[in-house]
């Protein structure tokens, strides 16, 4: 117990670089959301908003419709979690371009993201089906229990390692390239940054969000899909 306390104090006094970057990204997303939310709330219904507010309103409307098409009635519960996860993972993957220490290069952050995804899937199942959600691992018949348990828990490992492997592998290649070229890397590395950091970062964000939503849509009961069929 004493060792835990001392390690905790050590992290608070000299934090590692990726921890500071992660906190800065969280603070940025939170303040941006609060400020833009206040502006939209106080706007008159007939006023014409400027470009940034229009982009935000259209973006969130499109995201809501996208999730409603998969999940049905529970979209108001699922969307805040998934939108926050999207913004955090996307900004973390991109921060390699700004010469920051990307948080998703470390397995602590990616395992937290995949545990968040596991929580979203299971809690939406419990809200939609009640206590019958836990009987779902015995479908279609009783001896399928080990296989169903494995297929519930293994996506935690696979989602975390997929994100970690892509971003850390890209960062390793960029480190080797910078070490090889020295000052000449100013001319050569921009296309590599565009491919590895921005390209793979965007693709992995889409993959992790789509997998979460598809796993959620497999766990909800039939009557919650009524809202799509209208």
């Amino acid at each position, binding site marked *: 117990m004493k060792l835990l306390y001392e390690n905790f104090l050590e992290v608070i006094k000299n934090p590692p670089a990726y921890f500071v970057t992660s906190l800065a990204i969280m603070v940025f997303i939170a303040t941006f959301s609060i400020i833009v939310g206040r502006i939209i709330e106080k706007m008159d219904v007939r006023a014409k908003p400027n470009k940034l507010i229009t982009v935000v309103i259209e973006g969130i409307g499109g995201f809501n419709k996208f999730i409603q098409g998969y999940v049905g009635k529970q979209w108001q519960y699922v969307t805040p979690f998934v939108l926050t996860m999207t913004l955090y993972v996307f900004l973390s993957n991109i921060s390699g371009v700004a010469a920051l220490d990307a948080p998703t290069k470390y397995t602590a952050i990616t395992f937290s993201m995949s545990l968040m995804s596991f929580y979203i899937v299971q809690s939406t199942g419990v809200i939609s089906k009640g206590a019958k959600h836990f009987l779902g691992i015995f479908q279609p018949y009783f001896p399928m229990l080990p296989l169903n348990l494995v297929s519930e828990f293994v996506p935690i490992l696979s989602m975390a390692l997929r994100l970690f*492997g892509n971003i850390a592998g890209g960062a390793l290649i960029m480190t080797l390239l910078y070490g090889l070229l020295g000052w000449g890397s100013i001319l050569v590395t921009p296309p590599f940054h565009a491919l590895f950091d921005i390209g793979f970062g965007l693709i992995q964000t889409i993959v992790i969000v789509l997998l979460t939503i598809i796993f959620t849509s497999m766990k909800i009961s039939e009557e919650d899909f009524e809202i799509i069929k209208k």
Partner: protein
Amino acid sequence: MLDFINSVLPNVLDVIPNEFFRSGLAYIGAGIAVLTGLGTGIGQGIAAGKAVEAVGRQPEASGKITVTMIVGQAVAETTGIYGFIIAILLLGR
């Protein structure tokens, strides 16, 4: 278990099991681990070929086909990344 292997090994092969021997075997293991890229490359190449064929058959749907192919390949790439992670872990030994 390691003591047993260390005692049997000088009688079977002509080596001394110190830390250089272990480090060399770890490097060989890292090289073998990256061979998982073989199956991944073949699978993703076949998927890309089918996507190009589909675009050739109906060029108006090329946006949707591209997005679906990218997502499918990002999921199929996972097993190749597993081999890469094992190789990086072994290089540190």
